[in-house]
């Protein structure tokens, strides 16, 4: 086909956009393949994107994580402010700091490479990858119990790692000296660099094919068309003011009931998220920087209104955001932020709760609202080597207008898979005694909430150490439109004599002796609609599946008393 002059028609634009999406996906795969960190290879905790010279997000790889949505924009803002006038072909920038360089937590290393064509700056190839370690007080750079960003790892402002194609070796040496297993981290850096370079050469081909003017027009249209699409979806919401609030259980450092308050104003195609009145930032590491809050808002909007909308600046720019500096949701230096994902989950619950009346057919009850983390570590008696086994567990997903919430699943901002029981036992001196759904944990409703998960783990032939982070361990996941709340989660210790005792919600350094065990129980989720409206058939399934017991059903569903007993 011949290439028309700008503006591009919707056919040529679709073909060009397809090529750009392909670049984002290929650079994503290339980064995953060549990285060392398990987080990147196995859990795909990375993202790739094309940005324009103004720092606008044009295309993000399909498989990218929602939380990375706004992080690249943050990096670009700092980059352009600091280096805007002096960019050269072959430069490559790196950064990670949440407070000065647009990051969301330190293990996420951000990179950006300007792409020049015929002497003009046309785009940036960007990526983010979660490194297995970025230094700091504790291996893995994600630990609780820390109070300042300095303790969480090496802080990197926006710096030039390559200057006109030349690696700044002294800078890389400085970075690698400050992280654990530097040889592997060096591999992670070069995986990211190679991904940028692949993207640059692929983008150059598209520029060869279409020319700068057409590509610029394409960038612009991609953003404006997505913005128009999202604005139309927002205009479909009833105008008005929507309020909701919830709170985090605790920060693991003494603060409890940490409020997140939200007022949403919908006015035609405009939407304003005002988080004023939310709690001040806290001592523990559940603080969130502004762009992670923005990413959470954009995730929730897309999920509620248009899950298939492409990820670009058109989505990011749409919600107007008011967040107080120094609050939990726009934490100021030197707040620690490693566990920001737990708070992002709660922000999303609050948004979905606020907008439920505006979009009842798409609304959901509160999900397990957490990123329940369990870490077992010790010395393997079989080999004499130290081990660390970290896992994040899913839980209930909220009840929905037309179907029950999913049981035992990762929700919203996270979607990482579990480690198989057989892999755990082959790999670590641990035994999984059981792994299943938690009875009676799904909140009652016309469509019930999803159920939490429970895993019981015991060390084999040695004593191990347990660390964890739980949320919605104190505050239940609420239901919507009359639906009831789901169960909370908990960490428990089982002593050798079988006596169980509750552990803190964010336990640090608990010793588990042989013959003892830990119960990791994650929260369920809230129901949708009045329990009295639940059908007899659905209740029958609740009963015969054994997911809920007779007594509990009778207590939560008035109609269960009449239909019960036929069993």
């Amino acid at each position: 086909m011949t290439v028309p002059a700008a503006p591009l028609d919707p056919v040529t634009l679709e073909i060009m956009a397809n090529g750009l999406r392909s670049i984002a996906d290929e650079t994503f795969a290339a980064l995953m393949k060549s990285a060392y960190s398990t987080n990147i290879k196995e859990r795909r905790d990375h993202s790739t994107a094309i940005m324009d010279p103004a720092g606008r997000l044009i295309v993000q790889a399909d498989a990218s994580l929602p939380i990375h949505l706004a992080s690249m924009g943050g990096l670009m803002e700092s980059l352009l402010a600091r280096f805007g006038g002096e960019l050269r072909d072959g430069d490559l920038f790196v950064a990670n700091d949440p407070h000065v360089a647009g990051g969301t937590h330190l293990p996420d290393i951000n990179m950006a490479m300007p792409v020049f064509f015929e002497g003009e700056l046309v785009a940036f190839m960007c990526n983010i990858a979660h490194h297995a370690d970025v230094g700091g007080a504790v291996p893995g750079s994600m630990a609780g119990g820390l109070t300042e960003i300095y303790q969480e790892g090496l802080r990197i402002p926006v710096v030039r790692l390559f200057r006109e194609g030349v690696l700044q070796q002294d800078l890389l040496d400085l970075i690698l000296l400050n992280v654990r297993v530097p040889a592997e981290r060096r591999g992670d850096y070069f995986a990211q660099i190679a991904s940028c370079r692949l993207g640059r050469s692929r983008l150059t081909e598209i520029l060869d094919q279409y020319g700068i003017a057409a590509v610029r027009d394409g960038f612009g249209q991609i953003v404006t068309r997505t913005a128009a699409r999202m604005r139309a979806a927002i205009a479909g919401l009833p105008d008005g003011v929507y309020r909701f609030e919830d709170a985090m259980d605790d920060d693991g450092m003494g603060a409890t009931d940490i409020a997140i308050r939200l007022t949403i104003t919908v006015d035609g195609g405009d939407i304003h998220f005002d988080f004023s009145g939310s709690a001040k930032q806290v001592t523990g590491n559940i603080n969130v920087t502004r762009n992670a809050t923005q990413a959470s808002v954009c995730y929730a909007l897309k999920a509620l209104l248009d899950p298939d909308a492409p990820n670009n600046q058109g989505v990011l720019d749409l919600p107007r955001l008011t967040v107080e500096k120094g609050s939990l949701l726009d934490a100021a230096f030197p707040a620690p932020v490693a566990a920001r994902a737990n708070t992002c989950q709660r922000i999303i619950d609050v948004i979905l709760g606020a907008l439920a009346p505006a979009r009842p057919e798409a609304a959901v009850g509160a999900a397990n609202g957490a990123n329940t983390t369990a870490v077992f570590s010790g010395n393997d008696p079989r080999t004499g080597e130290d081990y660390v086994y970290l896992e994040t567990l899913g839980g209930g997903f909220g009840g929905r207008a037309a179907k029950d919430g999913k049981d035992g699943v990762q929700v919203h901002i996270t979607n990482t898979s579990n480690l198989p029981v057989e892999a755990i036992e082959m790999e670590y001196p641990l035994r999984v005694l059981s792994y299943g759904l938690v009875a009676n944990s799904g909140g009652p409703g016309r469509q019930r909430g999803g159920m939490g998960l429970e895993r019981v783990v015991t060390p084999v032939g040695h004593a191990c150490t347990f660390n964890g982070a739980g949320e919605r361990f104190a505050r239940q996941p609420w239901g919507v439109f009359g639906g009831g709340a789901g169960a909370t989660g908990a960490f428990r210790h089982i002593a050798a004599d079988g006596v169980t005792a509750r552990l803190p919600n964010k336990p640090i350094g608990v010793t588990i002796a042989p013959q003892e065990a830990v119960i990791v129980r994650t929260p369920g989720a809230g129901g949708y609609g009045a329990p009295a409206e639940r059908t007899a058939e659905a209740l029958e399934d609740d009963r015969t599946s054994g997911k809920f017991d007779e007594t509990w059903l009778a207590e939560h569903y008035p109609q269960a008393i009449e239909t019960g007993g036929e069993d």
Partner: protein
Amino acid sequence: MGWLVGVDVGGTFTDFFACRPEDGATRIFKRPSTPHNPGEAIVRGLQEMAASLDVDPARIDRLCHGTTVATNALIQRRGGTVALVTTEGFRDLLEIGRQTRPHMYSLQLDHPAPLVPRRRRFEIRERMGPAGEVLTEPDEDGLTAVAEAVAASGAQSCAVCCLFSFVDPAHERRIADALKRRLPDLPLSLSSSVRPEFREYERFSTTVLNACLQPVIADYLAYLETETAALAPDAAIRIYQSSGGLMSVGTARTYPIRTALSGPAAGAVGAVHTARGAERPNVITLDMGGTSADVALIRGYDAGIGLDREVAGYPVRQPMVDIHTVGAGGGSIAWFERDGLLKVGPRSAGAEPGPACYGRGGTEPTVTDANLALGRLSPAGLAGGDLALDEGAARRAIEPAAQRLGFSVEKTAQGILGIVVANMVRAVRTISVERGLDPRDYALMPFGGAGPLHAVEVARVLGIREIVVPGAPGILCAQGLIVSDLKEEFVRSGRFALTAEGLLQIAGLLDGLEADARAWFDAEGVAPEDRGLTLSFDARYVGQNFELPVSFAGGSHGVLALPAGPDEIADVFHAEHERHYGFHSAGEPIEIVNIRIAATGRMAAVAAPVSGRNAVRAAEPAGHRPVWFDGDAAVETPVYWRESLAAGMAFAGPAVVEQLDSTTVVFPGDRAAVDEAGNLVIAVGQSETAAPGAAP
């Protein structure tokens, strides 16, 4: 020797490919499928071929059959009622799966509910540890109770799935014995037999799917055996498996899950056969049908094997030809996305109502309508076909989109094809670039009814310079069936250090695997000279959670070719790791988690198919018609009959080549020639607007 017949049952058509090795005679035949009982189309087709093509059923020696019965039963949830017996404490494992969602942003989409509801999932007190050590022995009371529970559940089949059964199947077998005592006729699927590998969820899921299919496939195979016994008494029936090999009816009855996804696999094997004939060892295949396109990558005449796929939304771990599917077919519908961009697929008009030009009530514009509007397809339909195409209906379907775009109908049609090509290009990039391979190093082999229509455009965008169109592109799957070997795989799972001591342990297991393979060769009646064994290990660096296969082929007469020692295995592993992931770690310890033996029983060699029958001396077009390529006007274009093209003939594009089962479009600037094996080889010209190829 008599006829070898391959039958590929698809959703719309059942394809036959028959060949007689003694004189190289070949026949191709196509008839409508009979979805209510797919076997009926096979029986009728055999009768019809006897009448019209002189293929005497009594002279059929082998009937190779690729079936979608299993796949369709899963997609339509028509499998049997299954019970599951599993380790105490783990009955929810099947439901939790990997605890992930299928769509990052959707609040509504879930993975499908498990095929066995919780009330039919029964726990038994038993447990093994990772070394096969017995932690809890199942007791008689427990065994009796669980058998009673299964009996009371009304299940038609039962899956038995215990933790660490891949190390030692003893507990699963004791449970099976107890079930057999109580329910002698109940089909059983043991995870230690169906897929004895570690990672319990994928193993359990595969086993449950297998159990679910057992009742369905048993009925189907019984029908087929009875009917063909009467019609073609000498025909040995072989069933195609997803790994690209054949198996006996008995094996198919025990392991029906192996037939899921066997259709596309047959195409890839047919493509390998064609690639050999064309002497092109490296080929990217593009199998485009009515609703989707399958792409696969063949390296050194080898279509790679993958292990993990989803069938009907459920994970299946089985050796399967590595194929990537994209929703791009002749029936794919063009539509406008919310942001105003034109999209094509994945929604398809299917066989009913089909594209608008079929005149069966379809009104939305499809890829086939676009091809017709541009003159690339003939209004007479496929050569020799009964189905004329309604060009007016095609244009009317495209008109609303053209108006919205402000384009002519032809320019809109070009746009629709440009987009469907872009979608296929993405699929090809996925299978090549993500494996560290450059598509420009490959030839493109299009097949299926619609592949050759779009091959030139796909090749141009990818920078591929050569296209090989097989002799019978629409029947390549059926053809693949009869050029396949018997195949079986034997596997042991565990953790073995890649050291001299580790290899000693492995050697002990290999004896058992080889004995299993020998027993299988004997049972299948494979002659010693036809027995092939390939040893492979799934290896990884200690601490990794993913493995790479490391293969040692070259054994013959049923004897394994063994690597010399740990160093040789390590060298191959490092090289594979380098290719896949761009690095290797020479000093790192390596471990092996699966030991596999692939056994092949070579079937009779088959002559190269359909070339140059009724050939004339020079390439003479049968006619001309105006065809739109990528310009603003139609070009008067010669139309050739494929049957009239003999080896050695060549012609320049533009051209359209029509045949019974497909249409090939050759663009201006391209050159086409017929090779010795009857393939149409197109040298792709460089168009000004084509994208240059990908950089490495």
